């Protein structure tokens, strides 16, 4: 794997100024005359380095600062403090040479024209990114094949399902072969089958094309399946940056043992620390169970633990 650093931030900070309106009609009138603002730090001194070819997951609860970080990395918004370098550029300078090297897909923002077909949008993006005709045709064929959407390229976008639309958004984003792909909640609202397909495609793109991918998602399945490395953000600060398996190993502490019996109580469920599983099994076996299953901690519980304990350790 190429280890060239392509994203580097140091103490990156973003502070928003928000108008605070007092309650009621009186508050609204007062707001016309004298406005009070509060400052909110969305991203607080985040230092981050990403090397070419990496697949990095960015997780955190709602309002943690993940999307704000992505917006700064893509130049959509300007940082308030710290330094930032993406592909050798200061993103908010909004240079076309920089924009040609990355792509961003935000689950709730679309580049597609709803009234037109995907091929119409792709033709537009071919010209916008100045892609040679032969390369354009090759890429279009490759992605239409990879995503299994060959039959949908000439269908009006607004008639596509959410999952199909997300595949098309990804094709539009990948058409110019970006070096970095920023994905903000790409599987939001998708069913299990569509999410699984998207994950498979992203893995292939990262592996086969060497595209660096930075992914934010609330679905831990996305992060666990795809990202070797995970960055956890809470209240704007980075609380973990390291291996994904290591992260889950650290916080996925318990196992859930379910035993089924022929006689009352028929079924028994216990949650025990990983290191006490043997003892628990030994005890359960004395009651001659008909069946036993052992499962990992529920993902939701693990995530809650990561955010809560990570925050305490960081404090």
């Amino acid at each position, binding site marked *: 794997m190429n280890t060239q650093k392509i994203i580097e931030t140091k103490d990156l900070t973003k502070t928003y100024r928000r108008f605070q309106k007092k309650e009621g009609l009186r508050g609204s009138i007062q707001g016309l005359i004298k406005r009070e603002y509060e400052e909110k730090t969305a991203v607080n001194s985040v230092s981050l380095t990403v090397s070419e070819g990496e697949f990095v997951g960015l997780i955190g609860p709602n309002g943690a600062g993940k999307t704000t970080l992505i*917006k700064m990395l893509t130049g959509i918004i300007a940082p308030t403090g710290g330094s930032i370098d993406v592909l050798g550029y200061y993103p908010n300078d909004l240079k*076309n040479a920089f*924009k040609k090297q990355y792509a961003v897909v*935000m689950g709730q*923002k679309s*580049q597609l024209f709803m009234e*037109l077909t995907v091929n119409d949008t792709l033709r537009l993006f071919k*010209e916008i*990114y100045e892609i040679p005709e032969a390369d354009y045709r090759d890429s279009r064929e490759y992605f239409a094949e990879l995503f299994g959407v060959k039959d949908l390229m000439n269908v009006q976008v607004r008639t596509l399902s959410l999952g199909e639309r997300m595949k098309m958004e990804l094709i539009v984003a990948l058409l110019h072969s970006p070096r970095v792909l920023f994905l903000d909640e790409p599987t939001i609202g998708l069913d299990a089958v569509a999410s699984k397909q998207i994950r498979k495609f992203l893995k292939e793109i990262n592996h086969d094309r060497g595209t660096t991918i930075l992914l934010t998602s609330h679905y831990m399945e996305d992060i666990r399946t795809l990202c070797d490395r995970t960055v956890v953000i809470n209240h704007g600060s980075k609380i973990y940056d390291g291996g994904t398996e290591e992260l889950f190993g650290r916080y996925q502490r318990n196992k859930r043992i379910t035993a089924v019996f022929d006689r009352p109580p028929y079924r028994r469920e216990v949650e025990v620390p990983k290191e006490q599983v043997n003892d628990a099994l030994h005890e359960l076996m004395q009651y001659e169970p008909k069946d036993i299953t052992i499962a990992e901690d529920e993902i939701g519980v693990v995530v809650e633990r990561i955010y809560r304990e990570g925050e305490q350790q960081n404090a």
Partner: protein
Amino acid sequence: MRKYREIARTYLKTQLAWRADVLFNMVFTVGRILFAYLLWKVIFAEKDTIGGFTFHGMLSYYIISSFFTQLEMSHGISEEMAARIRNGTFSKYIVIPVNVEGYFAAMESGVVLFYLFFDFAAAFIWIFLFGIEFTLVKDGMIIACALAMVLLGMFFMVQLNFFLGILTFKYEEINTFLMIKNNLIALVTGSIVPLALFPDTIVSFMRFLPFYYVTYLPSMLLTGKCAGEAVRGIIVISCWCIVMQAAIRIAWKRYVRRFDGVGI
């Protein structure tokens, strides 16, 4: 340049996607024609000329002026920008390698190309269905000046609306600006009443404003009036375009950094 041509083509295609819109636009255009015809017929019932216009001269002015006014649809730029900046989706224009002003100008061209067809149809209905003795200047130089002025005027309107859209970064809400602009334009462009009907002092003042050159002067030139103002008009509107471009550069550089992209 190819990318902007493709943007224009794409927006032209979006206009063609909705057949009901096409039909309603046609009905609306013909309705306007009928209303204006009846109105001026009543006004000219007791007079042969008003402000130097005969009935047919006035209708010729109205046909040309309506043609240009309906083509001038740049208000969509400021509205689109204001809405997208407020709801956070303006980022879709920021992240692609284009000049954002150029993108909106190309988008406007695509929409205008679509309406050009209906405007020609409307002018045709006016002239032939109502039997109007259409007055069109014969001097090729004046026609060229009028067309150049219309193009510059429309470009100026794109610039103005883009500039007002940029102000959303700072003020968040620009509806008041848009309302003032729309009312001023309706009056100063002479699209409601020819400026020739106003007192001389007011018209002299309006000559300093860019709006005078957007539809009014080109329409007057094409109907054989104000020939002496042709060259000066092109110079004035060109100067306004340069001034507005400088204002856009400064405002964009200063205010785009205020975009917080929140909303969605």
